[in-house]
């Protein structure tokens, strides 16, 4: 299992609420206990401070607030591990981009080899798709894996 239906609903709700900015967060797990941790995307702050070094804003990129990562690190100290790292693409598909791939590697090795990356697509404010990716050690690349869930239906009757 990559996501429970409730977790998928939370990720989609987060993505729609942040639109047209990218949402980001993690799901941590300890045994059967799981927690969705919505993180703050500070990409706009970085872009505002230094647009040369950070040419993208939060419409096309995410950068999790390091303070959120500090909090997540403390949870790791309590026995949790990062099961899922998620973000959204605004007005783009649910794919693992070259940027996503490059930032998920540290010196050509996966930063989180046992973690699933989940990408949600939102177009015009509506959820369009969700996809998941994991490191394939044999292929030495990230490969799509089946989420196994359909997008939740919105009150308007369509995803």
């Amino acid at each position, binding site marked *: 299992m990559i996501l429970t239906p409730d977790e998928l609903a939370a990720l989609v709700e987060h993505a729609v609420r942040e639109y047209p900015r990218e949402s980001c967060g993690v799901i941590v797990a300890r045994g059967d206990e799981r927690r969705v941790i919505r993180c703050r995307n500070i990409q706009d702050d970085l872009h505002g401070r230094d647009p040369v070094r950070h040419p993208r804003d939060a419409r*096309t990129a995410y950068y999790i607030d390091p303070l959120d990562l500090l909090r997540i690190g403390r949870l790791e100290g309590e026995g949790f591990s990062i099961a899922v790292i998620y973000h959204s693409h605004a007005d783009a598909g649910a*794919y693992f981009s070259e940027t*996503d791939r490059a930032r998920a590697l540290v010196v050509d090795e996966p930063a989180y080899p046992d973690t699933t990356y989940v990408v949600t697509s939102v177009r015009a404010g509506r959820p369009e798709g969700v996809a998941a990716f994991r490191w394939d050690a044999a292929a030495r690349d990230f490969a799509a894996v089946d989420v196994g869930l359909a997008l939740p239906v919105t009150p308007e009757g369509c995803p």
Partner: protein
Amino acid sequence: MPVTVYIPTPFRRATGNRGRVDLEAGDVGQLLDRLETTYTDLKGLVRNEQGDVHPHVNIYVNNEAIEDRDGLGTRLRDGDEVAIIPALAGGR
């Protein structure tokens, strides 16, 4: 009592999968020197060849970023918690 260092998942392959390491150090720069001496594979992951912390790596002493204090010269006290936090980022 030494300082406790939080090693994030992306760097644990350099520390024998240790998530926390206890070290004696007077400041953050000295702490990184000692970490890199003990765990040589950490070299280059946290700092560049000039000894500067990579822009995509944040270091906190307790809850405070070292750039808001004295950078690598930030003094450490027994019992402090130092966290090394590489960026988690991406985009379409």
